Structures are given as structure tokens and as C-alpha cells.
């Protein structure tokens, strides 16, 4: 039996004005378990807290009920008081007789009556309270960043600068991501490579950062602070630590007609290749699907020309196992496929290109060395049509396209149009738009400059149809404001393709038990207040894996994610909330209902041996709750049919006791 003390607060006249506090403390005296009951002007004051501490000692109290303001206000205060008096802080319950009683009722009689009932409910609950201790788990002081684009790079640098080791896993042979493919960046027009490559070098040289390039995450186990990750380092057939990146092998490789992914297939690379000059790590990679030596054992030229002896045709995939405290997802995006948009003739003409291809065409390191030449005949295009919103903002039921706005297209199209008019003033540039969306610092000014200073012709209306005819592209569109049909003979058409999350994101989310929306973007723990955290503890989101973003936004989110990771890794131990779910193994059916409703993936199952009355041993599947992951929502407790799952601090028996006390 508990020995409960009841402390009724007047809160000046806030409570005492509408509630007869003396009557409340008197009435609660006779409740089961109550051995002491008093009232005082301000329970939260030092003097009030001293009354509680003294009573705990004097009456050997095991539980405390404070009838006062909302627990959201002073529950923490009174828990500390209890702890100071040597009591478990979770033996305190608050009856909210201010916000939910004295302040909302005018009549002293009803107010007092209700206050007594609320007090009785709290006493009934405390009678069933048990001391709770928060669980502790150690933290592995190392972070994993999945994806080596600008988001991953920024997150890794920030975490590493704070002194924690970071590993970056990048599926391509080099880090850099999409930003490395871009030419200039809006709205300042600095060159992407000039601002990105120094950061890539920083990453390569940072003592706290390891890069696993040409690698993929295979398996993820564990939980916040204690993830176990298996990383597959794919064989690149070049010894990374020996290769100097001199490029002799590339130069001599006889397989010259392999489409170059980095230039989106607009030119060719060799079977052994370095994606681009500033690649990090600057190490060659042999493409096993193209290399003669690997396919048929006939060639071996690269091995002969490599003075460092870095070529290793026998290299195997390598599996690396590492422990991490936190995982950052930075898997990025890709433009959607244009295959379904027949009306834009993307697959019929090489001169209909996507915006990312256009970036490569204008990039000094691109297939045309930065000269704007159209892919089909390498002629300078005189009329260029940009089409916005290709595949963005589509109906949910439509078979092609995405429902959301891809966010970045308006700005990069303005940039492209402006750059063309700047370099080639003899070029006619049309931009067909539905809306021009420019919310961002200096964004609208940028767009206006494109129109006003550079004479880009913005036309409201979606292009209806593009027909290749001779060396021209017949563009048919309706100018909605002038209400007339336009027929433009274009030399080059650039489609602002919608962006979608990278295909690797979905299987990764499954491994992480992190949730995703219907478009395969990762969901945040809270859309407004916790935008860089996944609902799965210890998993953080950086960049476009969470939603379409431009570079400044990506970098902000990357740093925010890093801050969250640092905040986690700086702790030696994670102290959990002790009010978590706990299963009674003897009653657990192993049915998985709780596991299915858990938003955090906190529940797992083990096969456990149970001694039987007949001295045999039975093996049953039973639920286990990971205290470091459980957040204590209680969804599992209701999903559990047998009632094996209960929630500490809000046990079924406690809530039923409250119900009974109120309904008595």
C-alpha cells in the first residue's frame, strides 16, 4: 500500500478564488492510501516545495499528489522536489485544478466538487504508480552520411569539424553529386565547380572523414546511438590507395565508345575512367560491363601502362562492417524519365534535351567545352525554347508526372535563358511557363533581370506539341495572354523535367525503418518543428531526399542535420524517457500487431524459451521494446489483444483507476 501525501495549491486566488482548497485537502484525506493532506498558498514556491519535502520525510510518503496548475507547467518542478526528498520522481501525479477547473468554472460549489474528483483520480493513479528509471544506452561517436552530393558533403564537413568521425557512402566513383554537373548557380551565377570542388577537397583531406565511394549500404541494424551497418565497397579493379589519378590508363584504354554518364550520355568515356577532372577520390574505375580484360581476359593495357601498379583485375567486392551513432540520409534526386512525354519528342530528336543536359552543354568541362552547340549537328542554335513544369504539378491520377512542384525549375530556367542571351545575344529565347515561382532571396529580382535586361521572352502557356521537321523543331503553343496560337521553329528545346527522389531511397528507407511519403520522399519527424529528423530516432534527413530543394536550402538543411547529429554524438549516454511500452512476455502472443503500429520501429521479436509446468521448455515468439527508440505513444498497447503490452506511467490499470474514480 502506498503512503500518499496530497498537496493542494491555492495559486494565490487563481485556484482558491473558485475552489475551496481546504475542503479539497480535507476530502482527499479519506481517500485510500492518503496519509497526509494539506494546502498552501503557492506550492511551487520554495516554501511550498519545502512543505512537500518535509512531509515526505515526516510521513514516509511513497507517493505525491499535487492539486495545482497544469502538469505541463509544473510537473517537472514537483518531480525534482520529490527527487530531492529521496523519492522516485515518477511517483508524483498532478491534478490540474487550475487550467481545467478554477479558471473555467465560476461557481465555488461545482469548482470544489470537480477539484475533489480530479484529486481522487490522481490519488487512484498514484496508488498504482511504480518507480521508473530512465533507460540508458551508449552512443557510438561516429556518423554515417549516405550520399556524397552537396547535402552529404556539407553535413559530413560540419560533423567532422565538430570533432566526430564521419563516413560518407557514395554509390558513384566520385562524390559531388548533381551539383558537380551544374554550370552556374542561381541567383549569383557563380560557377558550381568553383564553389563545390574546394569543399570536395576539404572532405578528402579532413582527418575525421572517410569516403567510401563506389559503395552501397547493404544492411542496417541496431538503433539510435548504436547502428550496425554493412557497407558494400564494389570492386573498382583499381587499388584506391595506390592509384595516383594520373590518367595514363584512361588515355590508353582501347574501349572508347562507352556512353559517359557524367555528361548524361552526350559524349563517350573509356572502359577505365575518372568521371571528371576534380573527382574525389581522384582514382580510376574500371567498368566491368565494358572492359575487355574483365569480360574476356584479352587486353590488359591499363595494367601495363600503370607505373604505380594500381590495376587489379582480381579485385572483389568488399564488405565493411561499422558501428554508427547517427545516420544521415542524403540520397538526393534525379530528373524523371521523359519517355512518357511523346508530345515533346524527347526520344525522337536529339535536340530536345532536359535542363540537366543543358547544364552539361554549357559547362566548360562538358562535351562541347562550354560552347552552346546543339547535339544533332553541333550547330549553334538560334532559337531556343524552354518548357517549364514538364512532369511537375500533374494530376495524381495521371499516369505520367508528379503531383508536386519541383521548385527549382523556374529559377534554373531563368538562369539558362539569361546565360544564353548573355553569351549569344543573337539567340532568340522563349520560356513557356504556367506560373513563375520565385520565392527566395534575390530570386524574383533575378527573374526580372532575365526579362528586362536580357530580353528573354516569357510566354504564359504550356507547349502543346513539338514536331521535328528537317533540322527544325516545330513548337506549337498557345500564348494565353495574347490569346493566339504560336508556331515557333526552334533549333533547340529544353525541357524542365520534374525531379524525383533517387531510386535507392526506397530500399534504404526500408532498411532504416524510416517512413516515406507516396512520392518516396522521406518524411520528417514533424513537418514544421523537426524538419531534419526522421521519425526513426537517430536518422536524419539532408537535402532533396526530403523534398525538392535548391542549393542554398539544401546546404541549410545539411548543416541543420549536422547540428542535430552533433547534439546526439556529443552525449556519452542516451537517457530515455522512462514512460515507454513494456511487454509482459508471459502474455505476449507474438502476433506482430504492436510491431505494425509502432511509428518508430521500436518493437522487434525474439524466440524465447519458457519453462512449462510439466518441466518441458516451450519456445515462443515474444515482443521486445527497445527503450532507446520507443517514444511512449501507446499505439501498441491498444493493438495488443491480450493486453501484454502496457505503457509505463500510463498503464491500463492506472487509466482505468482514473476512470473509476471519476465515475464513482
Amino acid at each position, binding site marked *: 500500500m502506498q503512503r500518499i501525501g496530497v498537496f493542494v495549491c491555492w495559486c494565490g486566488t487563481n485556484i482558491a478564488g473558485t475552489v475551496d482548497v481546504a475542503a479539497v485537502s480535507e476530502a482527499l484525506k479519506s481517500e485510500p492510501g492518503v496519509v497526509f493532506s494539506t494546502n498552501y498558498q503557492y506550492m511551487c514556491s520554495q516554501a511550498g516545495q519545502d512543505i512537500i519535502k518535509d512531509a515526505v520525510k515526516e510521513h514516509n510518503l511513497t507517493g505525491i499528489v499535487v492539486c495545482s496548475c497544469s502538469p505541463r507547467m509544473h510537473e517537472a518542478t514537483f518531480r525534482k522536489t520529490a527527487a530531492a526528498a529521496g523519492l522516485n520522481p515518477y511517483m508524483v501525479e498532478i491534478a490540474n485544478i487550475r487550467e481545467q477547473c478554477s479558471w*473555467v468554472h465560476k461557481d465555488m460549489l461545482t469548482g470544489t466538487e*470537480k477539484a475533489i474528483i480530479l484529486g481522487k*483520480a490522481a490519488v487512484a493513479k498514484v496508488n498504482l504508480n511504480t518507480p521508473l528509471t530512465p533507460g540508458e544506452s551508449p552512443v557510438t561517436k561516429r556518423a554515417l552520411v549516405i550520399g556524397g552530393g552537396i547535402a552529404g558533403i556539407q553535413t559530413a564537413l560540419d560533423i567532422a569539424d565538430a570533432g566526430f568521425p564521419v563516413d560518407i557512402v557514395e554509390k558513384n566513383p566520385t562524390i559531388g553529386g548533381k551539383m558537380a554537373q551544374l554550370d552556374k548557380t542561381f541567383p549569383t551565377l557563380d560557377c558550381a565547380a568553383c564553389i563545390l570542388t574546394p569543399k570536395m577537397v576539404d572532405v578528402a583531406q579532413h582527418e575525421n572523414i572517410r569516403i567510401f565511394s563506389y559503395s552501397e549500404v547493404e544492411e542496417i541494424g541496431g538503433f539510435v546511438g548504436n547502428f550496425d551497418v554493412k557497407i558494400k565497397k564494389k570492386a573498382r579493379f583499381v587499388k584506391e590507395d595506390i592509384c595516383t589519378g594520373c590518367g595514363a590508363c584512361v588515355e590508353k584504354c582501347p574501349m572508347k565508345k562507352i556512353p559517359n554518364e557524367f555528361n548524361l550520355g552526350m559524349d563517350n568515356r573509356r572502359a577505365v575512367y575518372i568521371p571528371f577532372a576534380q573527382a574525389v577520390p581522384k582514382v580510376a574505375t574500371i567498368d566491368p560491363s565494358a572492359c575487355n580484360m574483365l569480360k574476356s581476359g584479352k587486353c590488359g593495357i591499363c595494367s601495363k601502362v600503370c607505373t604505380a601498379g594500381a590495376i587489379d583485375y582480381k579485385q572483389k567486392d568488399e564488405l565493411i562492417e561499422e558501428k554508427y551513432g547517427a545516420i544521415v540520409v542524403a540520397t538526393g534526386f534525379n530528373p524523371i524519365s521523359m519517355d512518357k512525354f511523346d508530345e515533346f519528342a524527347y526520344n525522337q530528336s536529339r535536340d530536345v534535351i532536359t535542363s540537366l543536359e543543358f547544364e552539361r552543354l554549357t559547362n566548360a568541362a562538358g562535351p562541347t567545352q562550354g560552347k552552346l552547340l546543339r547535339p544533332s549537328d553541333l550547330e549553334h542554335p538560334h532559337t531556343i525554347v524552354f518548357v517549364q513544369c514538364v512532369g511537375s504539378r500533374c494530376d495524381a491520377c495521371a499516369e505520367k508526372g508528379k503531383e508536386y512542384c519541383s521548385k527549382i525549375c523556374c529559377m534554373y530556367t531563368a538562369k539558362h535563358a539569361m546565360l544564353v542571351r548573355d553569351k549569344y545575344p543573337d539567340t532568340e529565347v522563349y520560356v513557356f511557363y504556367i506560373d513563375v515561382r520565385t520565392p527566395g532571396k534575390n530570386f524574383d529580382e533575378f527573374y526580372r533581370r532575365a526579362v528586362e535586361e536580357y530580353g528573354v521572352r516569357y510566354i504564359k502557356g504550356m507547349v502543346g506539341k513539338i514536331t521535328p521537321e528537317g533540322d527544325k523543331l516545330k513548337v506549337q503553343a498557345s500564348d494565353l495572354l495574347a490569346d493566339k496560337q504560336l508556331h515557333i521553329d526552334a533549333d533547340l528545346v529544353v525541357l524542365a523535367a520534374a525531379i524525383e527522389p533517387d531510386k535507392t531511397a526506397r530500399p534504404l528507407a526500408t532498411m532504416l525503418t524510416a517512413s516515406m511519403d507516396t512520392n518516396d520522399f522521406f518524411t520528417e519527424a514533424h513537418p514544421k518543428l523537426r524538419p531534419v529528423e526522421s521519425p526513426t530516432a537517430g536518422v536524419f534527413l539532408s537535402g532533396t531526399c526530403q523534398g525538392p530543394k535548391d542549393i542554398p536550402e539544401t546546404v541549410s538543411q545539411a548543416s541543420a542535420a549536422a547540428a542535430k547529429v552533433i547534439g546526439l554524438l556529443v552525449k556519452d549516454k542516451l537517457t530515455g524517457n522512462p514512460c515507454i511500452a513494456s511487454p509482459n512476455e508471459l502474455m505476449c502472443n507474438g502476433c506482430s500487431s504492436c510491431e505494425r503500429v509502432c511509428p518508430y520501429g521500436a518493437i522487434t521479436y525474439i524466440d524465447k524459451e519458457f519453462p512449462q509446468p510439466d518441466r518441458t521448455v516451450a519456445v515462443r515468439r515474444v515482443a521486445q521494446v527497445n527503450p532507446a527508440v520507443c517514444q511512449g*505513444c*501507446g*499505439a501498441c498497447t491498444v493493438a495488443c489483444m491480450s493486453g501484454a503490452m502496457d505503457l509505463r506511467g500510463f498503464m491500463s490499470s492506472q*487509466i482505468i483507476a482514473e476512470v473509476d474514480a471519476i465515475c464513482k
Partner: protein
Amino acid sequence: MQVNEYRPLIVAFCCNWCSYAGADLAGNNRLNYPADVKIIRVPCSCRVNPMFILRAFQRGADGVIICGCHPGDCHYTSGNYYTRRRMALLFSMLDYLGIERERTRLEWVSAAEGAKFAATMNDFAETVAALGENKRLEDLRCKK
């Protein structure tokens, strides 16, 4: 107020993060609602087991209301979605058994909606009061 006037007994389950805070806000703004409403704090509306609701009715409650965060705003991301399904089915079943459907309610009240909390409680208390005592459900043993 007349002493003998019938007043209903109403149990309100409120989630800690939104609706309980909404009730606190109603208090901060001194928005009146009947004292018939007694609030039980739960971490999330998904902690409310249908058994608790039946228990309240069994012990003489005249109405039970469950309040949670608006869909999409759950502190635990998805708890209230489960609540919504469970309560939709439970309420439909109670109605099927011939229990007045007005005695149960599920409302979404955010931490900012003090006024909505008070208005909801006023409306619910009035509705339940109009129905009168919960004769169909109460357990006579537990009555005084």
C-alpha cells in the same frame, strides 16, 4: 444553479501534446465550459483503449469524448490515424447495439484551439444532457 438539476457525467480523454494543451489554453483564456467534463490525460489519443470507454460507460458515465491532435499533426506522427479507425468502428458498433450515437465523440483539438476545446465541451455536454441519464449502459452495481 439548481442543486437537483440533472447534470451528465462526461469523461474526456485528451492527448498530452495537443488537446490537453488546448484545454489548458481554454483555462488560460478563462473560457467556460461545464464542470461535468472531467479530463484524463493520455500521451496520445492512440493510448485510449476501447475498453476504457466501455469501462466509463459501465461505471455510469453519460458521455465519453476523445480528443487528439489533428490528422497529420500527431506528436508521434501516426497515432491519431489509428485512433480514427478504432473509434470509427467502435462508435459504429455501439450505435449498432442501440446505444445513442451522441454519447461518444472523437474531436481533433490542437494546442492553439482553446476556444474550440471550450466550444466542443459546451456542445457535447449540452447534447449529452439532452439525452438524459445513460440508462442503457450503466452498471447498477457501481452506482451510489
